[in-house]
Each structure stands twice: as structure tokens, then as C-alpha cells.
């Protein structure tokens, strides 16, 4: 049975750009006059969508436009999108911090929103006093907090300092205590924004675990905004992908994540073409195309699937000892590995003039969750480089369903190969 606890209908939110000052009084008068004459608000009509790359002159923009969706009881919904896509605005509307410009939201149950860790913490008050204050701000009453106090303190791990003013806390302790309060809220619906970006790895893991527990065992509904795709993938039943204030995808988590990640750096073909064009013409070698793909996706790859590459080139003369290959370089600039087309040959290759394609696959379960650059390394053995450090393709590897799926934390190391372990009692 579908039990809808949040129904968002046609939500739009308009913001005024620039300074709010002398002009606002004038606009207010125009609005009032329009209202008196029974006309529509003159400023609701104008305004462009919130595309931050689009420099269009309008004083009003729509941060959200006609958003519709439903959330069912016990569902964990991820909300993802680039900066400025409207995620925070949506959460602000849902948590009643600001009202929508048009539309309505219907809610069943109490909502607790965690748009920030430690809202209302007062530095002069002790940890204990702040637990009560913060809990009350988030909507609990004194009795509810007292009941959970022990649990909250135990979860935060700051028992020793609970009677010390929080201004003497380390930032980690502060955040831990604040999250602990929020995690023990009694409300039916929880809204969480980027909270996981804080605390050490250990605590982040604890938070993720707690949130999983909240949704799965306690049956609470959670709305979760994060830029951490691994956490999103791990926690959410479904996602809502926002772009420029519109929903561009809603449904399956993995597809939504790819939908979000794809367009960000979606310049590979154009920049690549430019790179190829800008190459100095070589007397014998002409590169025509380079391609990297995984199921038609060109720059975001899943770590547990193979990545296909291919390069096309024309040779004007016969060449002995041509080696076509590439380096994979990680985000720190370390070369992860280099590969050549003749790695498995036993003799030097002889090429005749003509068109060629060299292709292959980068194996699955090798690269880790990170950004990489593929840099072409093409040369004639023991003679000269033809292309080196000139053609670069940036791509991202996402570890969504692969190794370490259970904990989903950041692994040290350059690669993350799949190693089959055997463990048994002896």
C-alpha cells in the first residue's frame, strides 16, 4: 500500500538578484498597485531559470520551477544536483524555513530538518545544556530529550566533556554532539543536508550507519542531500536529480546519479576535438579520433565494469616500431600505469601506410573511486615521441556497486583491485 507522507505540488521559488535596497520599495509599490487593480503580480512573470552559466539580465530568477514529487513512508530519497541546482532551496521550503512562491507541500507527520549541524548551539553553554537547547530547537520537548540523553551522549562520545562549555570543544567533538542530537530525534520525517561532510572517517561511517538504521529499522522517511555519490548510492532507495531548478530525473538511484554526473564535464568531445586540431601536424602520423566509453557514457564510469578505448589514426608512410599507447594519471599526478598496443607482441611491429584503429579495454575492478586523466603516449621505439602529454581525456570512476560497497569509505592507495579472499576457520 502506498502511504504518501510528503506530496509536493507545483513548487516554484523566485529570488531577487542583486541588492535588496532602494529598488525594493519601488517594486513593493508596483506590486501593491497591481494587487489593488486586481492584476497579477508583475514580478512573478519575469525571471529566467537558474542557469548560472547563462548571463541574462533579469532581476528575478526562478530557483525552483514546477517541482512535483511524492515521498512514501519509510523511503530514503536522495536529492542530488550540481551547486545551484536548487537542492537547498527545496529543503528550505520543505523544512518551512522559507515559503514557496507558488505551489504547496502536504506533509503527514513531524519534520525535523538538519540543514546545518549544531543549529543554535551556544558557545557559552555546556554540552548538556546545548543538547537540550538544540533538541528543543529541532522540535523535541524536554521529556523526550531527557529520555534519550544518555543515548545521545554515548553516541557522540563526549561523555567526559558534557559539563564543559562547548566553546572549549574541538570542532570534531562539537559536530559529533550536534549530530548525535539530530540522529535521536523522534520525528517521522528527517531532512538532512550535507551533514556527512564533517567529522573524521570513523564518525562519518557511524553517521551513515545510524541513518541506515533510522530508515530501515525505525521506518522513518529520510530526505538526503549530498555530493557524496557513494553515500547517496548506499543509502537511498531512489533519487531526485535537479538541474537549474528543474527535476531532470527521478527514480532509480544509480541512473539518477549518472544522470547528474554526466552533464557536468560534458565537454569531452569538443575539447578533445580541439586538442586534436591543435596538434602540430606530423609528417607521417595523423590522429583522427580518440574515444573512451562504457555503455555509451563517455566520462563517468562504474568501477566494476570494463572501460573501452579506441583510437583511430592515418599513417602516411610505412613505419617500423610505432607504439600506440596511453598513461593513466590520477588526480595527484601519479602515473597509475602505462599501456601499449604491442605489450603482448614478441617482435617489433611493422605498419604500412593506411588507416588504423587500436582498441582495447581497461579491466573492471582496477581503478578506484576518483578522477583520472588518460594521456596518449604515441611514439616510434627508440626514435622519438609523436604524441606525448598533449592529448588528455579526463574521466571519473565511480565505485557504486563494486569493491567495499558495504562501508563505502575512501580507500587509500592508487588502485583498488578486486582480490578474492578466502577465510575459514582452521
Amino acid at each position: 500500500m502506498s502511504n504518501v507522507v510528503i506530496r509536493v505540488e507545483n513548487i516554484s521559488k523566485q529570488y531577487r538578484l542583486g541588492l535588496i535596497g532602494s529598488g525594493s520599495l519601488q517594486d513593493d509599490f508596483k506590486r501593491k498597485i497591481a494587487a489593488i487593480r486586481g492584476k497579477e503580480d508583475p514580478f512573478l512573470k519575469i525571471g529566467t531559470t537558474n542557469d548560472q552559466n547563462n548571463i541574462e539580465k533579469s532581476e528575478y530568477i526562478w530557483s525552483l520551477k514546477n517541482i512535483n514529487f511524492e515521498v512514501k513512508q519509510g523511503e530514503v530519497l536522495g536529492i542530488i544536483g550540481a551547486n545551484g541546482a536548487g537542492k537547498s532551496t527545496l529543503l528550505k521550503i520543505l523544512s518551512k524555513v522559507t515559503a514557496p512562491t507558488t505551489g504547496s507541500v502536504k506533509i503527514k507527520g513531524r519534520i525535523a530538518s538538519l540543514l546545518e549541524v549544531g543549529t543554535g548551539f551556544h558557545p557559552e553553554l555546556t554540552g548538556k545544556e546545548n543538547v537540550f537547547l538544540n533538541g528543543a530547537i529541532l522540535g523535541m520537548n524536554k521529556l523526550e530529550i531527557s529520555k534519550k540523553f544518555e543515548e545521545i551522549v554515548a553516541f557522540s562520545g563526549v561523555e567526559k566533556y558534557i559539563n564543559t562549555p562547548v566553546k572549549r570543544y574541538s570542532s570534531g567533538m562539537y559536530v559529533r554532539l550536534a549530530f548525535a542530537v539530530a540522529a535521536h530525534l523522534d520525528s517521522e520525517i528527517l531532512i538532512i543536508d550535507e551533514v556527512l561532510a564533517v567529522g573524521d572517517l570513523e564518525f562519518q561511517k557511524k553517521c551513515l550507519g545510524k541513518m541506515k538504521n533510522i530508515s530501515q529499522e525505525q521506518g522513518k522517511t529520510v530526505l538526503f542531500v549530498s555530493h557524496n555519490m557513494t553515500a547517496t548510492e548506499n543509502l537511498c532507495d531512489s533519487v531526485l536529480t535537479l538541474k537549474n531548478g528543474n527535476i531532470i530525473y527521478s527514480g532509480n538511484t544509480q541512473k539518477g546519479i549518472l544522470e547528474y554526473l554526466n552533464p557536468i564535464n560534458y565537454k569531452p568531445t569538443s575539447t578533445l576535438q580541439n586538442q586534436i586540431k591543435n596538434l602540430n601536424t606530423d609528417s607521417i602520423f595523423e590522429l583522427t579520433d580518440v574515444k573512451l566509453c562504457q555503455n555509451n557514457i563517455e566520462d563517468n564510469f562504474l568501477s566494476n565494469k570494463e572501460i573501452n578505448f579506441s583510437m583511430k589514426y592515418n599513417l602516411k608512410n610505412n613505419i617500423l616500431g610505432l607504439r600506440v599507447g596511453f598513461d593513466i594519471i590520477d588526480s595527484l599526478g601519479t602515473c597509475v600505469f602505462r599501456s601499449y598496443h604491442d605489450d603482448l607482441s614478441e617482435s617489433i611491429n611493422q605498419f604500412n601506410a593506411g588507416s588504423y584503429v587500436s582498441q582495447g579495454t581497461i579491466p573492471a575492478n582496477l581503478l578506484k573511486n576518483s578522477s583520472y586523466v588518460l594521456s596518449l603516449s604515441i611514439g616510434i621505439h627508440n626514435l622519438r615521441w609523436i604524441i606525448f602529454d598533449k592529448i588528455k581525456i579526463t574521466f571519473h570512476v565511480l565505485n557504486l556497486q563494486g569493491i567495499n560497497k558495504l562501508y563505502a569509505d575512501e580507500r587509500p592507495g592508487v588502485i583498488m583491485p578486486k582480490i578474492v579472499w578466502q577465510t575459514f576457520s582452521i
Partner: protein
Amino acid sequence: MDRFNNKTNIDSQQDEWTEIITPKNGLFDLHLNEIWRYRDLLMLFVKRDFVSTYKQTILGPLWFFIAPILTTITFTIVFGNIAHLSTEKKPPVIFYMCGIIAWNYFATCLTSTSTTFRDNATIFGKVYFPRLIIPLSVIITNLVKFAIQFLLLICVWLYFLKQGTISNPSKSLLILPLLVILMAGLGLGAGMIISSLTTKYRDLIFLLQFGIQLLMYTTPIIYPLSSIPTKYQWIIIANPMTAIIESFRHAFLGNDNFLPFNLFYSAGCMILLLFIGIIIFNKTEKTFIDTV
């Protein structure tokens, strides 16, 4: 089985939404029940304000006493001994102290509620609770401060009573609680109006600084109403605080300036200000975060 499923489906559709968020509130949609639900928060805010104000001070709450004592001494010297303003033959110390303590309550209520939205923008921007909680907590915090200062006043009053320099307590002492409510209401109402308007137009903050001072001089604090020429008394009486301060002093000093009818005027002003204040505040709280 089928029938059962159908039934639950219908039931779930009939379920009431507990909350509906819309662009605009009804004018009188004040959510008073919500304020009741958040009463613990109200008290915690009061506690927070207290604890945080005097943490790391040596004298702590003693400062509540020191401020009115110093002001009273200053007034006694400047207005009583140097300017020789009339105190209707009452001891100047208690005369000024009555006025100062009562006025201070109103003035602090007004100034601190008038910055509600601005001072709490960060917390309002992150979490929802009935916004009215903040001005209410300010009123209560100041009420406690007032109560402490009132104790001081009682002590001074008892001293003068024993000396026999002022007459015995009159029945009008009984209206003191009413006067406190009137002052709180006036401060809250005006404060809410100003805080709502300052979210967009900050000019009002500067106006308020000046306005409160002006208002203080049009209220009989450093002079009795009787010292004003009858021709101009209406200006002073038009100030709703006048009747309150005069009655307050009347209760302690027993002078002849008890103005029951003017108290009704003050009450009327309070109700009007509170009414307008709550409506504007309620309208502002929904979207102020976008303009503050």
C-alpha cells in the same frame, strides 16, 4: 482479502495531512497551538539568555542591580541637584528609580524584540520553529531582570517608608501586575512591527535608537506630569507610556497623578499594537529569510 485492501486504501486517502505548506498564510493563522507545543524551547531560550549574559563576569547577576543604581544616582545629581527639576516633594532617589526601572523594562523589551529577525537570521535560516518564540522569550527574560530590579526598588521603598518620608502604601499597588503586562505588550507589539519592517528596510534600526530616546523624554520619568504646563500636557499624555509610568509611581509614592482613564487608553494602544504586530510578524516570518 480484496475487500480489506480496498478499505485500507480508502482509509489512507482520507488520512488528514498534518501540515500543508503554502506560499501565504491566512491573516489570522497564528499557530498558537504550535507555540504551546514549543513551550520548552521558550523556557530554554530564556535560560540561555540568562546564563550566557553573565558567564565569565565576576559580579554576575549583581549587574542587574548596579545599572539602575548608577542611573538613579546620575539622575539624582544631574536632574535633581543641578537642574532642580521638581519631584513633587518626594525623595528624588525613589522618584527616579521608579521611573527608570519601569521604563527600562519597556525599553529593553522594545529594543530587543525589534532585532528579532536580524539577530536570529542564521538560526531562522536553518530550522523552523514558531518565530514568535524568540520575541516571547525576550519578553520573559526581561521580565525576570525586571523582577530582580523590582526587588531593589522594594528595598529602597521600604527604607523610605520607615523613614516616613513617603506616605503609606495605597491600594493602587494592586494594579502593578497590570502595568507590567501593559508595558510588555506595548514593547512586544511595537518591537514586532519594527523587527518585521527592518527585514527589508534597515533604516528603521537607526530611527529606533533615536526614537526610544525621544520617547523617554516625552514620558514623565525625570519630571512629574504636573510640572508640564496644562496647555502642553496632552502631548505627554498622548504617549501611552505616560499613564503607565505615572500610575507606577503613584502606587509607590502616592502622589495625585493616578490616571485610570488614561490607563484604558494605554491598554487600547497595546491591543492595537499587538494586533498589528502579530499580523505583520506572521506575514513576514514566512519569507523574511530571502530578504534579510
